[in-house]
């Protein structure tokens, strides 16, 4: 991707987006919103299996993923898409804001989360930033991720390489969870805006990496080390 999806306030490369949602009303509404703002909506899908299939075929820059998709959830689809297509980023767009779902999707590889009632401006900005490789955090997601790191640190099982946050990362995440924007955080901590973004991204990457290692270990321990995407 070259990370050049969007330059701040500058020229924009066309970002290809795929919209996954089981409500046609939403699918079309969001697709229209995005098209009006200059994004290229290359595909839509109404359920997880077809989302995975179509994503593999069209390889969009960004997948907007609803989590509540029926039998195979958006979490599963997120895991499959991000493991198959390393250049495609998944942004979760969920109505229910249910905590565990969102955390699972982010651990499975999603690069961010937005509530469905977010304004069109917020949505457009989030998609641009996702395409540029940034993590899109709401305050709520920051609270979940902080909690997850602390849960893992406190878990009694003696798994050696638990991911840990640096002091700076914890500080940044706490400020995100308290509603500060990246710019406000940069001002308060006297660091650059870019550094704040990097810290936030790094908290997600460590969590996702750990999740993949855990899944692989689980698969090997339980003799399931076949292609995970072979099952439907």
């Amino acid at each position: 991707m070259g990370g050049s999806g969007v330059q701040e306030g500058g020229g924009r490369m066309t970002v290809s987006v795929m919209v996954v949602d089981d409500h046609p009303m939403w699918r079309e509404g969001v697709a229209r919103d995005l098209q009006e703002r200059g994004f290229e909506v290359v595909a839509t899908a109404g359920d997880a299996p077809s989302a995975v299939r179509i994503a593999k075929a069209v390889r969009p820059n960004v997948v907007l993923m609803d989590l509540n998709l029926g039998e195979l959830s958006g979490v599963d689809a997120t895991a499959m898409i991000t493991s198959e297509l390393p250049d495609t980023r998944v942004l979760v767009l969920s109505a229910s804001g249910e905590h565990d779902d969102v955390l699972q999707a982010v651990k499975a590889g999603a690069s961010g989360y937005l509530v469905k009632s977010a304004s069109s401006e917020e949505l457009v900005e989030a998609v641009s930033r996702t395409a540029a490789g940034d993590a899109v955090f709401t305050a709520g997601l920051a609270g979940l991720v902080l909690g997850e790191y602390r849960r893992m640190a406190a878990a009694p099982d003696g798994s050696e390489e638990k991911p840990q946050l640096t002091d700076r990362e914890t500080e940044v995440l706490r400020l995100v969870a308290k509603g500060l924007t990246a710019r406000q955080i940069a001002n308060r901590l006297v660091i650059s805006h870019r550094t704040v973004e990097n810290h936030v991204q790094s908290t997600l990457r460590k969590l996702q990496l750990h999740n993949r290692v855990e899944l692989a270990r689980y698969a090997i321990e339980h003799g399931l080390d076949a292609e995970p995407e072979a099952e439907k």
Partner: protein
Amino acid sequence: MPKEPAERVTKVIDDPATPLWRGTIALRIVTFLFAAANVIANQSGYVRPWLAWTTLGVMALWSVFTSRAYSTTWGRRWPLVLVDLALTCGLMSLSPLIMSDHQLLVLHVPLITTIWACVPAVALGALGGAAAGFGGGLTVGLFTYLSHRSPSLDLLRDVVLLSGAGMVVGMASATARRSAVLLAQALRAEAATAERERLARSIHDSVLQVLARVRKRGLEVGGEAAELARMAGEQEVALRNLVAAAPTDSTVDGDIDLRPGLQMLATPRIQVSTPATQVMFEAPAAGELTSLVREALSNVDKHCGEDARAWVLLEDLGEEIVLSVRDDGPGIPEGRIASAAAEGRMGIEKSIKGRVESLGGTLELQTGPGEGTEWEVRVFRKGAAG
């Protein structure tokens, strides 16, 4: 493979007295061996040894047959168990024909069926409950008495033992059946609740989708639609809170999850962030913390105007809980809290500080003109402090 536990559950529910029947079968086999040993030991004194061996043969066949019958639900029925009782008593009544009077009256050699005869009483108890077991024991006891033809204290003891044992087994089987019915009811209720929850989730999700869409489009259209959008937005947040804040059980020692109470405080302008897992805290203190946050938020409403937003963050550090409340309002000018306290009308000093202190926690306030206000409350868990 995942079917197996379910099947086991239904089988147990089909006949909860199954363990008692297995016990009955084991008892039958053991007592038969005893009866065989008895015949071998005493056959030299028998008047009709051939009848003794024939009786033992019938007992053997009957033991095999009933063992098979009682291990299926098919055989656990009144006709078979009553035939069992009749046959046992009948075989027992042959004893005076087999044994000599000397054996019977002087040596007190056991009857031909000996303790094998107690099995129908146990089977009756397992099948029909306490009364049936008692009656079965009494019947067997009565035939023992008739076969001996002379009353004695030993006989009386046998009757009491037999009817008592039958009754106890009967009570056990009745209890097992009652529990099985209750368990089945509980399982059905649980399944129904799970199904209801599943339906509720999908309905909630659809409603949330519509509300979110109305809010979004309404704001874009503007005018009267913007008012509708605002109302839809409020309902959306309220419903989302309800879905997220599923009620949780309190633990045995009275701890409750802090999250649901806090999540209910969220509005379109107030974001509440919590971990995905439970944050347990002592119940009365948990309530205090929640009302403390509510106080801080109402303070935001009062002093920061309609447009101010607020964020609540709950963190669980293991030994302590951290609760932060931040707003993006104009901040509290220096000295304002103190002067308000002096006037005796502002809630902050008293409510928030006082509550935190009574919980043994610490309060930090970070504010300044144009910087918003941030409260950070830290309280230790009881177990961690000691």
